[in-house]
Each structure stands twice: as structure tokens, then as C-alpha cells.
């Protein structure tokens, strides 16, 4: 099998020892530059490269070979390209070179024609032991004088753009000015004649000098651009194409550098000289050329990519020099109205939206219609296109602040935006972690909470929509009320269609969730093993954590009060994927405690909600952790200490409620033969809460002691679960003993808040000391 061969080769290469490599280097040296041994030499070079590239540890080669290789790279010509490129790759593999080697082998020589061929090596060496500075001045010289050959100019330009991307701080204003001037030249002054065929030499035939064509085949009547078609291209035309291809990067990185270093008001528009206006001219011509119908199919992709690039460049030009905005804005608006419904151009439309977002303010244009187009139609129809969604996610991330504070796009269209994650859960989780807090506002947070919990359903519903035959998805739905056998059947039934429509809705704000969530979960049951649904379900816990963090940070008490019933409901209303349910329940239970800890008075103010939930022992089933955490919160926070509204009466009510539940669960535990959904943990938590409440309302103490005694009796000879029984009995006994000393009990079961500030072992009244003295009392009494 093909891959076995890959593995074998890699293993062999990785086994190569330093001696092997040395030997190989020597063999190469013996054959290097020996014409009759060139095939052998190539073969050895290939081997060396393969070993270097596959080795897991950095490997060096002999200095002599390195010198030979570098010389060879410098001598590259049309005849030996293949060989020299291989040498170049080997050298790059052992780069960056150390100081000594750089000074001996890689110093640019002014005027040497070899220097231009070494440009890739200088870029790879970077700023280490510096060849950037001397090469920069050479590169500028090559660019600014017409007397240098095409290859020098090309390499010089490549080097300057690389420096702008990787080491922009090395570029000074002069360099930027000179290069920009030269780019303007290349952009607007390329010849319009086609180059002759370089592969036919026919001295008798007169070379036809035809002008280049437009993409539709008509002869060009304007200046040359990359969208002009010729049989062959001249060198200056190639430089024109290079210039446009690298223009955005040049402007972008130079501009970034300038704005990050200059404190002054934009002088940076000047450093590009007339490049800005020439760029606008060139881009306008490209926009124009993109309206022509292509003769050769593959060029239409090129047109789209060019439009995308041109809009990005124009956007940047308007940022650099606001003077261009009116003219450019008009042109971009025209472009938008031409292409806004055309699927092929959707990527361009996102760039146009970026342009509008940046510059519409300057010309009093409201781009709301474009926002709507992008965040409703385009998103709804193309969420499956990962490239487009990548652009959209990048757009959202980049403009998060503007979108969040200056538009209502995020809070309106968040259900649609979540489709991106629901369809590409493996790819965009990181981005959603970043943008989630910006989607959350006081009015959307709850709906987002539901959306997150039902994200796997959204994925499943989208899959159903994808799989449903087109003809059926839009036309009439059946009114049958039979139970559907598959999710696709359900999608075609009037009874269930609204559920699908809701879960894949575009806008938020039409109700946080639906009553028939359970039936939605059940009709989507056949998709819970789908790979995409499973991966989506794995993203939910991560995002839920982010959601809760945001709520704990900025949610406020009012919101926490609204959230409580939702937590009570949703802690057991989840799409049934085992791992997902387990994770989500854990997160909800943990965060319930965090929220109650932050807003302790909720226990007092929301008695109705909480008691309704706690009274029913059926709520323990499937969410014991959540239930016990809530019981713990009641025991802990139902106190005057945390809310002035907390009365003895309320404590007694909570006590009565928990006592009833305690008797009930205790009974269930004893009778259940170890098979109930309730564990001793719940009961233990309940009796602790009872004891805590009793200390705050001392009339309750005798009642609590009685209750604890009864529970202990019930479990003393629990033969089904002796271990659990024993723990419960011990726990009851401890609490009874503590409650017998009401003053100590109040200290121990209601420790002051300083317990959290860490004065534990430093204070005479601290809990460990009290416990120790209580213990001593009990031991001597007992």
C-alpha cells in the first residue's frame, strides 16, 4: 500500500545517524559540479534533503557542503533551476545559520548577480545575525533603477514585501516611498502588446504584435491589468501582475507599522505618495473588467478572487486616505447592487460589508440593508460553505466591538449565527468562545442559554433539512398525526414542522424556547449518533462555561432571578446524548451554587419557585447533584445574615419542607433495596441542611433532633447498603451531638463569612479551635 511505503521511508530516514549524514555529505561533495556525475549528485541531494526534512531532531551539514550549496543557489539560471532549487531547499532546512556562517557564506555582495538568487535564503535567515539591512539597500537599488534585469527587480520586490510582512520595523519612510513609487509605475505603465512566443524561433516570420485582449476576447483599449489575456506575457506585464498580487500586503503591513509607531495625525497617507490614487485607478479598471463575460471558464473564479482583492484594497486605501472615500464609495455601492444576489459573489459581499462598516459613516449611507442581506439570506443559504463562513466569522471577530455597540446585528441574528457552529463544530469553536459574550445582552442571554443547550438539536434539524428532498421542504406538509418513524418524516408533518422552523430560526427575540421541546428532542432522536451532532454536543459544555462566567461577571441579581426557573426546568430537559447530558448537568449544578453564592438572597426571595421544586422527590431522579446542590444552598444561605427579608417563619417553612422530603427519601432509601435513583448522599445533604436551619431558629432544634434520631434508627440496620447506612447513622449522630449544644452548634453550622477569608488557624475564635473544645466536652461528658 502506498502509505506503507511512506512509513518505511520515513523510518529509514529517521534512523540515519550523524555518521551516515556525514558520509552522505562527503559523497555529495565528491560528485558536486562533476558534469558526468550530475545524476548521481541529484540522487544524493534528494536523499540528504529527505533525511533532513524527516528527521525529528535538527541536523547539521558540513560547512564545506553548505558553502557549495549556497554558491550553487547563487548561480541559478534557466538551465540548472531544478538542481539549484534542491540546493536551496537543503540550505533552508539547516537555517537559520549561526553568526560565523552568516558572515562567511551569506554576506550580500554589492553588484554581484548572485545576490538576487539568494533572496529566499536571506528571508529565511531573517534578522538573525543580520542580512536584512544590507540586502534592503540592494533591493531598493534594483527597484529604483531601470538598468537592472527582471529577475533582480522581481526578487527585490519579493524581498521588500517579505520584510514588510515579517520585519516591518526595518522599513523606513524612504524605503516605503521608493517602493510605492515603483509599484505605481508597474501598475499603470505595463505594455499592452502581447509577448512573442518564446519557444518558436522563426526568423522569416514577422512577429505579430497584437495588443492583449480582455477576458471576453475583445482587444484591450485601456491600460494592462492581470485580467488581460495574451498568448504570452512580457516581463513588465509579469511585474504588473506581481504588483497587484502583493499590493494589499504591502499597503496593509506598512500601514499597520506606521499607525503603530506614529503618534502624529496621519502623515502616513503621504509615504505611499501617488500609489493610493494609482491603486484606485487600477482597482476601478479591475472592477470594470469583472463585468465582462469570460471566454474561458476558469477565469471566472479569477474574477471573483480579483473582486474580493480589489474591494479589500479599496477599503484599505480609504482608511489610509479618507479623501478617496466619496468616489470609491459610490463605485462599491454600484458593485454591490450588481452582485448582491449572486451566490458566486457572496465572499465579495462580506468584504463590501466591511467596506461599508468602515466608511459609510463618512458619506451618510446606512448599510443596514447589507447587514440584513449578509446575516439573513447569505448566512441562511450558505452556512454549509466553510470558506464563506470562515470569512463571516473573521468579519464578526474583527468588528466585534462595532457590531456589539453600534448595531443590533448580533443580538438580532444570533440564532442564525449559531448555525455556523452547529454545522462546523470542529472548526469554529475557538471563534465562538471569543464572540459568545458579545452576543449576550440582558434581553438575549436567556434565549442564548436555551440555544446553547439545544445546539445539537439545531445541528440535527439542519441535517434533516439538508437530507429532505428539495421538492418536499418547501411545499405542503402532511397533516397526519401519526407518530413519525424518522426525523425526516417528522419534518414533513404539519405537527412538527413549526418545531424545526423554531430551532433553525433566523432572528432571536420571539420567545426564548418552546413548550414542545420534549417532542422536538424525541423526533430528532434518530440523529443523536450522527457525527456532526456528536461533535456539536461536545462544544456545548465549553460554551456553557463561557456563558456562566459572563453571567457571574455581569449578569446581576435580576437576571439570576429570571435564570433560576430556567435552570430548574432545563436541568432535566436535554437532548439525550449520554455524555452531553452528563456534562451539561454537571456544569449547571456547579454554576447553580456559584450563582446562589453570589446572590444569596435569592434563596429567600424565590421561596415559591424553590420550594415547588424541592417538595417533589421525583425531581431528584436523573439530577441528584443539581437537587442536592440546591438543598445545600437552602441550608447555607437561608439566613438573616444574607437577607434582611429572611424571617424565622421562612426558615421554619423551609425546614418543614426539607423535613418532609427527608422522611420521604429516607423511607425510599430503606425500602428500595439499593435500587433507587436516590443515594445516601442526598439524604446526608438534607439532614445537614435541616441541622443548619434548626440552629437559626432554635425552636426547631428539638424537632431536628427527633427527625435525625428517626432517620438514624431507620438506617441502623440497613442490610441492603450497610456502608451507606453507617455513614448516615454517623452523620445523624454527629449532628445530634452538635445540636445538643445550641451555642456551639450555631457557630459550627453557621460559620462567619471570615471562613472564606482565611483566618482559620490564626484566630482564637476560629472553627478548628471551637471544634476541638466541643470534642473535648463531648468526650469527657460521654
Amino acid at each position: 500500500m502506498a502509505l506503507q511505503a511512506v512509513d518505511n521511508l520515513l523510518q529509514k530516514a529517521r534512523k540515519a545517524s550523524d555518521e551516515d549524514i556525514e558520509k552522505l555529505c562527503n559523497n555529495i561533495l565528491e560528485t558536486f559540479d562533476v558534469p558526468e556525475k550530475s545524476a548521481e549528485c541529484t540522487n544524493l541531494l534528494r536523499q540528504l534533503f529527505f533525511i533532513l526534512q524527516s528527521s525529528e531532531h535538527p541536523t547539521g551539514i558540513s560547512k564545506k557542503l553548505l558553502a557549495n550549496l549556497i554558491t550553487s543557489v547563487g548561480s541559478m539560471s534557466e538551465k540548472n533551476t531544478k538542481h539549484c532549487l534542491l540546493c536551496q531547499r537543503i540550505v533552508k532546512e539547516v537555517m537559520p545559520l549561526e553568526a560565523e556562517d552568516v558572515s562567511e557564506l551569506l554576506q550580500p555582495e554589492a553588484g554581484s548577480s548572485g545576490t538576487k538568487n539568494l533572496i529566499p535564503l536571506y528571508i529565511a535567515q531573517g534578522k538573525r545575525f543580520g542580512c536584512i539591512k544590507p540586502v534592503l539597500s540592494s533591493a531598493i537599488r534594483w527597484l529604483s533603477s531601470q538598468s537592472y534585469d527582471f529577475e533582480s527587480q522581481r526578487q527585490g520586490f519579493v524581498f521588500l514585501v517579505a520584510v514588510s510582512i515579517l520585519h516591518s520595523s526595518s522599513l523606513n519612510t524612504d524605503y516605503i516611498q521608493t517602493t510605492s513609487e515603483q509599484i505605481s509605475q508597474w501598475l499603470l505603465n505595463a505594455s499592452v502588446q502581447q509577448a512573442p512566443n518564446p519557444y518558436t524561433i522563426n526568423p522569416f516570420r514577422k512577429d505579430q504584435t497584437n495588443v492583449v485582449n480582455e477576458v471576453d476576447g475583445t482587444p484591450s483599449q485601456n491600460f494592462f491589468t492581470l485580467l488581460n489575456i495574451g498568448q504570452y506575457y512580457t516581463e513588465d506585464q509579469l511585474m504588473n501582475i506581481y504588483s497587484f498580487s502583493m499590493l494589499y500586503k504591502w499597503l496593509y503591513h506598512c500601514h499597520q507599522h506606521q499607525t503603530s509607531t506614529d503618534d502624529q495625525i496621519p502623515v502616513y497617507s503621504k509615504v505611499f505618495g501617488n500609489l493610493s490614487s494609482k491603486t484606485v485607478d487600477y482597482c476601478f479598471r479591475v472592477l470594470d473588467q469583472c463585468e465582462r463575460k469570460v471566454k474561458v471558464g476558469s477565469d471566472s473564479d479569477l474574477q471573483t478572487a480579483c473582486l474580493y482583492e480589489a474591494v479589500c484594497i479599496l477599503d484599505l486605501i480609504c482608511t489610509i486616505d479618507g479623501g478617496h472615500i466619496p468616489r470609491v464609495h459610490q463605485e462599491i455601492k454600484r458593485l454591490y447592487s450588481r452582485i448582491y444576489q449572486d451566490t458566486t459573489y457572496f465572499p465579495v459581499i462580506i468584504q463590501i460589508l466591511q467596506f461599508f462598516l468602515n466608511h459609510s459613516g463618512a458619506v451618510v449611507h446606512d448599510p443596514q440593508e447589507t447587514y440584513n442581506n449578509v446575516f439573513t439570506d447569505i448566512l441562511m443559504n450558505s452556512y454549509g460553505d466553510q470558506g464563506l463562513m470562515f470569512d463571516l466569522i473573521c468579519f464578526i471577530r474583527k468588528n466585534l466591538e462595532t457590531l456589539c455597540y453600534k448595531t443590533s446585528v448580533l443580538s438580532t441574528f444570533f440564532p442564525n449565527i449559531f448555525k455556523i457552529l452547529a454545522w462546523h463544530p470542529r472548526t469554529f469553536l475557538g471563534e465562538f468562545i471569543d464572540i459568545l459574550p458579545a452576543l449576550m445582552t440582558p434581553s438575549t442571554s436567556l434565549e442564548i442559554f436555551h440555544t446553547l443547550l439545544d445546539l445539537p438539536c439545531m445541528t440535527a434539524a439542519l441535517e434533516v433539512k439538508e437530507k429532505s428532498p428539495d421538492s418536499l421542504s418547501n411545499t405542503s406538509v402532511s397533516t397526519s398525526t401519526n407518530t413519525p418513524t424518522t426525523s425526516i418524516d417528522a419534518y414533513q408533518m404539519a405537527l412538527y414542522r413549526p418545531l424545526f422552523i423554531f430551532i433553525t430560526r433566523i432572528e432571536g427575540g420571539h420567545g426564548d424556547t418552546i413548550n414542545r421541546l420534549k417532542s422536538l428532542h424525541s423526533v430528532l432522536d434518530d440523529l443523536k449518533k450522527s457525527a456532526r451532532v456528536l461533535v456539536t454536543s461536545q462544544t456545548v459544555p465549553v460554551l456553557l462555561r463561557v456563558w456562566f462566567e459572563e453571567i457571574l461577571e455581569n449578569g446581576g441579581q435580576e437576571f439570576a432571578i429570571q435564570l433560576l426557573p430556567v435552570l430548574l426546568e432545563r436541568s432535566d430537559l436535554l437532548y439525550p446524548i449520554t455524555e452531553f447530558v452528563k456534562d451539561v448537568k454537571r456544569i449547571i449544578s456547579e454554576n447553580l451554587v456559584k450563582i446562589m453564592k453570589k446572590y444569596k438572597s435569592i434563596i429567600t426571595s424565590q421561596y415559591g419557585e424553590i420550594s415547588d421544586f424541592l417538595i417533589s422527590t421525583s425531581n431528584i431522579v436523573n439530577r441528584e447533584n443539581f437537587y442536592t446542590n440546591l438543598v445545600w444552598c437552602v441550608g447555607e444561605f437561608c439566613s438573616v445574615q444574607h437577607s434582611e427579608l429572611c424571617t424565622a417563619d421562612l426558615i421554619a417553612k423551609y425546614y418543614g419542607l426539607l423535613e418532609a422530603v427527608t422522611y420521604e427519601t429516607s423511607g425510599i432509601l430503606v425500602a428500595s433495596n439499593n435500587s433507587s435513583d436516590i443515594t445516601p448522599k442526598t439524604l446526608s445533604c438534607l439532614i445537614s441542611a435541616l441541622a443548619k436551619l434548626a440552629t437559626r431558629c432554635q425552636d426547631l432544634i428539638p424537632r431536628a433532633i427527633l427527625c435525625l434520631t428517626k432517620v438514624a434508627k431507620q438506617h441502623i440496620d440497613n442490610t441492603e447498603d450497610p456502608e451507606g447506612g453507617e455513614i448516615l447513622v454517623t452523620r445523624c449522630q454527629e449532628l445530634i451531638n452538635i445540636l445538643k449544644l445550641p451555642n456551639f452548634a450555631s457557630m459550627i453550622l453557621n460559620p462567619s463569612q471570615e471562613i472564606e477569608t482565611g483566618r482559620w488557624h490564626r484566630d482564637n475564635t476560629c472553627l478548628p479551635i471551637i471544634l476541638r473544645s466541643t470534642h473535648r466536652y463531648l468526650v469527657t461528658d460521654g
Partner: protein
Amino acid sequence: MVYAFLINTIVPGTPRLIYYDIYGQDGVADESRDITGDVLKSIRKAQIQLVSERVHSEYQFRRAISGRSVEEDVLRVSNDDTLPEFEVGFFRLGMGEIFNRERYVVWLGAGYTAFSVVCEISENRLLAESVLRLLIRYLQEHVRVLTQPSETGLRSERVGVVLNTFLPSGNLLFLNHRLIRQLEKEVDNQIKA
């Protein structure tokens, strides 16, 4: 200028790097003299490996959702003359995630192998995809990269010629159909030379 181009295997298990070329640099570490060249080389390799692992994971997900088996998938590339349909993907690498600066990856995959370019954020996504397609087309023509991936690492001089022509020093160029033909001939001549 893209940061790197790489080819790796995408069958289940650890992805193997078949070929890579790095054009860019990755931030301050490259300039610091406290870090030796060898350490930099190791970091560089590890980063490329991490990119290939992420591409591998994205591809496995695609394979899982399309419900295709590895065998079926490999069959798609068994015909030497026509290019298979590729899975295409894009993902962002935040600052510090793998590289010191924010970058993104465009990848195409089918059968045994995936091809990726690691782009600077100033790069044109559509162009990156179409150049990547061109590279695959000519790599298949000259080194049979899809059908005999093991040859690719060994016939590196041909890979070098294709890359140097269609991705010169890592630069993505806008190429119309005629210019592609012109470059195609240059590649043929250089490989024959």
C-alpha cells in the same frame, strides 16, 4: 507571502508529513539570539507538525460526516488522470495557538493526502484556494503526489520546481488561464532540463 506549504497523510492514525516548505518566520523568537538555531528549527518542525495534526483532525471529521470509508476515499484517487473531488477547509489559528501571530490555514484533501497553505491574515482566501488547486494539479502531473505519496519526498527537485513557479517565494499570484499555460511550459522545460 504564505507562511508555509505542507503535504501530509490523512489516513487514520498519526498524520505523516510528506513535504513542507516554510517561507515566513514566526515572530520574535526568530530574532532572539538567546535561542539557538537548533531550537528554532525544532520549534519550526513542531509547529508544522501541529498544523498537519489539525488538518488531519478536520479531515477525519469530514470523512465521518460523509460516512465514507477510508477504502472508498482512497479509491477516489486511484485514477491517475483525473483529479478527485477534494474536501476543502479553512480554519483560523489564533495568536499563540500554534504561531506567535494570527494566521489561517486553507487545506484540500482526498484519499491519502492533504495539502495546506498556512496564510498570513492579509492573504486572499479565494486566491489561496485556487493556487493550492493548481499546485496539486501540477504535483500530481509531475510526481504523482495523490497516487504515490511516498515518491513526493524523494523527488523533491520536481516539487521544488512546481512550487517555485506557482508559489514563488510563497507568494500567491493572480494567474489567468494564459499565464497558467505559460508557467506550465516553464515547469515542463525546467523539469526536462
